[in-house]
């Protein structure tokens, strides 16, 4: 029986939860090692050895040490192709390319504005930090435009990269979850017919429900 892989970071972190969702989809046993960011543990010399940018998550298995959530997800899929959801990263090169394209779209177009909104609307108040209204409205406008593109795509395709749930959809779960459930921005998703349908499907997956449970237990 292989040693469980290690994920370092708090489950409340969007990037950490991206990796957790992937591990659960792939049925890969893991050990979650807490990192107390309020106490600055992510900037400690020991942590910087495994993640020199001082960000979460960091990942270790017997063979290697990695960081960057989307890289970790790809590695998990490539290392364990036969486990869990076998199609998560595609089962042929064209499917995989389409998934990579939409993971990139998430990283380059969806993540920047949604991250700002998640921080401003969900985290800043809890951390008693001042919100920036112009930053909020700018990024809401950006995200609306991105979701317009998504709505068109999802009118032609059940999931972003094709007919099956993939890493591309999974990659969106963490930020979207907070926007809907902790930032009162559910309307961004419900006001667009196809995006609403897609969000309903991907957020009700068992794997994501398990991650949300882990987040609830951590608070």
């Amino acid at each position, binding site marked *: 029986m292989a040693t469980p892989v290690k994920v370092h970071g708090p489950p409340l972190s969007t990037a950490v939860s991206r990796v957790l969702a992937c591990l659960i989809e792939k049925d890969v046993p893991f050990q979650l090692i807490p990192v107390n960011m309020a106490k600055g543990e992510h900037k400690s010399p020991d942590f910087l050895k495994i993640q*020199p940018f001082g960000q979460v998550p960091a990942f270790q298995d017997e063979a*290697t040490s990695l960081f960057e959530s989307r*890289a970790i997800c790809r590695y998990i899929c*490539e*290392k364990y192709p036969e486990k869990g959801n076998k199609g998560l990263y595609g089962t042929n*090169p064209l499917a995989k390319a389409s998934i990579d394209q939409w993971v*990139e779209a998430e990283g380059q*177009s969806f993540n920047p504005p949604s991250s700002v909104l998640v921080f401003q609307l969900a985290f800043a108040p809890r951390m008693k930090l001042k919100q920036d209204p112009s930053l909020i409205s700018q990024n809401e406008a950006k995200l609306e435009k991105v979701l317009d593109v998504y709505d068109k795509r999802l009118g032609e395709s059940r999931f972003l990269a094709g007919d099956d749930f993939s890493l591309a959809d999974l990659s969106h779960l963490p930020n979207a979850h907070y926007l809907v459930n902790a930032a009162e921005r559910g309307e961004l998703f419900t006001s667009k017919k196809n995006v609403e349908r897609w969000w309903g499907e991907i957020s009700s997956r068992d794997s994501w429900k398990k991650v949300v449970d882990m987040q609830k237990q951590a608070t």
Partner: protein
Amino acid sequence: MGPKGEKKTAAALFYKLKRPSTLQHSQPTSTTMVVKVYGPVFASPKRVLVCLVEKEIEFEGVPLDLLKGEHKDPEFLKLQPFGTVPVTQDGDYVLYESRAIMRYYAEKYKSQGTDLLGKTVEERGQVENWLEVEAHNFDPHVFNLTLHVMFSSKLGIPRDENVIKESEEKLSRVLDIYEERLSKSKYLAGDFFSLADLSHLPFTQYLVGPIGKEYMITSRKHVNAWWNDISSRPSWQKVQQLYPAPL
């Protein structure tokens, strides 16, 4: 390989090419094996061009003038709904996002040309790790510098000195981490050149050239050695010759 003799505008090509509605999922037709790359003079498409040269894949640049707003043309948005470059067209098969395109061709032609993905799953993991670092920690800051220092007047947007200053500070901290990494490892993912290093070429060339911040590279011994190594690769020399930067 290289551009055809006649100059083709993007618009002319749109009307020439037949495009089925489910273009994304068409099979690539390998009869001609010439990959069309839109916007070849710009930085992000150059990642793809270098990759194709390294992999010995024939390509053809399709001009698209971002400075004239051609990327917002409705016909182009049908190919790339986010309105950015590059887009590649391989027969009827369309793909966008430079790092997705690179991964596809590097993997499809793994046994041809330079191996850009490492030899094992673990090495591939390191390539993915540092490619994501480039995308999320390096690119945003150097992109801001590119936008404000090089292109602001051309695009009619105000040059923001605060953004320039902040971006340089953030990039500086990132390069300190690169310096540490490259003191232990010849290339970013390990002792082999990979997509992770390649992805840095176009915007770093802007940084040391028209952006005027070469000192950020030359003041760091290992980053400097790494930059000299990767930027002197024949593939990068070739791409710059074929498609000189717009500024």
